[in-house]
């Protein structure tokens, strides 16, 4: 057998999908930072996390990632996309880029993706659930209802999430996320 007929195959790259996920993670990261200054539920979730708590959400093996930490005032701070070799108290990783695309194109909700083992959680599961709750709130703010319904387990009722709160915070989050 001529073994040269069967060369080794190095993995290629899916650049467009990678950039799409990176942009989505950047927007979500910035939005969490903004929401932590505006929305009382997000503020409450973060206040219950330990001091100096940091977590990453990203795609295995090489990212992109979204790193969020608590600053000195206990508010969320977007800390970039490059994780390097740093280990965080909570790491939520999506198993593959294709799985990430399913999540970030809202073909699969976060809860569904967890149930289908698309995620690997390394850290305290209680903190991970707090992060998932925050992500759900952010999705409600960032996306129109018709898309958010695909992404979250249950869209909040009017009594839980008044339209006034939603629209005012939505505008402020967008302004803050894309400006400073």
């Amino acid at each position, binding site marked *: *057998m001529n073994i040269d007929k*069967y060369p*080794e195959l*190095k993995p290629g790259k899916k650049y467009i999908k990678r950039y799409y996920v990176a942009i989505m993670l950047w927007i979500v990261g910035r939005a969490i930072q903004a929401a932590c200054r505006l929305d009382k539920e997000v503020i409450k979730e973060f206040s219950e996390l330990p001091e100096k708590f940091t977590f990453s959400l990203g795609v295995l093996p090489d990212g992109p990632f979204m790193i969020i930490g608590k600053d000195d005032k206990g508010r969320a701070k977007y800390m970039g996309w490059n994780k390097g070799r740093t280990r965080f108290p909570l790491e939520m990783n999506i198993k593959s880029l294709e799985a990430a695309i399913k999540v970030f194109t809202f073909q699969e909700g976060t809860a569904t993706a967890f149930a289908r083992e698309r995620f690997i959680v390394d850290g305290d599961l209680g903190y991970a659930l707090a992060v998932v709750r925050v992500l759900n709130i952010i999705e409600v703010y960032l996306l129109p209802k018709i898309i958010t319904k695909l992404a979250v387990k249950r869209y909040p009722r009017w009594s839980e999430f008044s339209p006034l709160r939603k629209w005012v915070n939505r505008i402020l989050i967008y302004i803050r996320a894309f400006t400073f």
Partner: protein
Amino acid sequence: MQKKAFYSFFNQSKYLAGARALEHIPIELHSYDAVRPLVIATKDVTASGFKKIFVKAFYDSDVTIGGFYDNVGGTAAISTIKELRILFHDRGCDSIIALGRGPAMDTAKGLNMLVSLGVDDIFTLEGEDTISTPLKPFFTVPTAGSCGYDMSNMAVIEHHRFKSDFLFPDVVCLDPRMTGIKDIGRAVESAMVALTHAMEASDSTMHNPMNDAYSLAAIQFIHENLPRALKCPRNREAALALAYANALAAVAFSNAPAGAAHILGEALNKLTGNDPGVCMAILLPHATEFMVGKDILMRDELLLAQAGMDAHASTPEKDRIKESENQLKKLMASAIKYVPANLKSLRIPPYLIEQAAREAEASGSHGLTFKDYMTILNNAGKAPAVR
């Protein structure tokens, strides 16, 4: 459900199934500390476009495919396995992925025995439970028309049989992009092997609740989805369900003694070269009828799996076994275009039929005599050409 005093059941495999299942392989390889698999595939894989899909699934991972050997023919050959050993070592591979139909799986299992155990002659490992240490990580990605053993604890290399729990694949990946039916004839044959294995596993004297969970589910999947696949071979949902049935039946088969239709089907395949799926499909109704005639365990739970709850509930208890046989015949009749109704259509000379019965008796795994096997074969030979 019958409660047995003792039974054992084992299944090693993890199953990745459904949308984008292939993309999970790199992370699963990591969990076995493997980053450089050797991929072994049957010849049809490249032509069918499966190779391209498979290789793309490794994009954006840190797994390098050490080599993609896509030249496995109709059977697993020891010469190919020995050549692949050179490729495996030359490229520094640490795991094996089998892609395609049965021969690729058998070749991969043979190679795994060679490279993991360091033996020169794998035929020294022939038989049952001759392997005593775990082998290298072994993943399988079956395509439509797999032979039913792929996901089991068995390998057949040049008609030599190897059976060990260490031969179970570590991970089985059933992705709808790979299980789409390209050749409906082959898909029917593989479904027939799975049906034979599942029916004989659920019907054997060794049946137990664990095995029932697999075998009855496989029977249900085949009865529900084979007619759908026959009607529209491009139906991806039905094709994936048949792949699930294959996987389920393989586990049931691994944990039960081989039944009469399987033993005779394998013997005829060995002697005549006819597809084992075709032989088993012809023999299964006659083997089942023979068992019922001899009052050897035939269970009414089968009807529940075959026809569903309504049909099961509306059939009187005493008629369920007969109805179960009718359901089986009905399914076979729907596949008549691909599976002949009797052995006569295969033009097998009588001396080979006798030899098959003799070999089946010699295998001794089902406790039937030469006369019993000949009765089944003669009934299958005399059956009308139209069901």
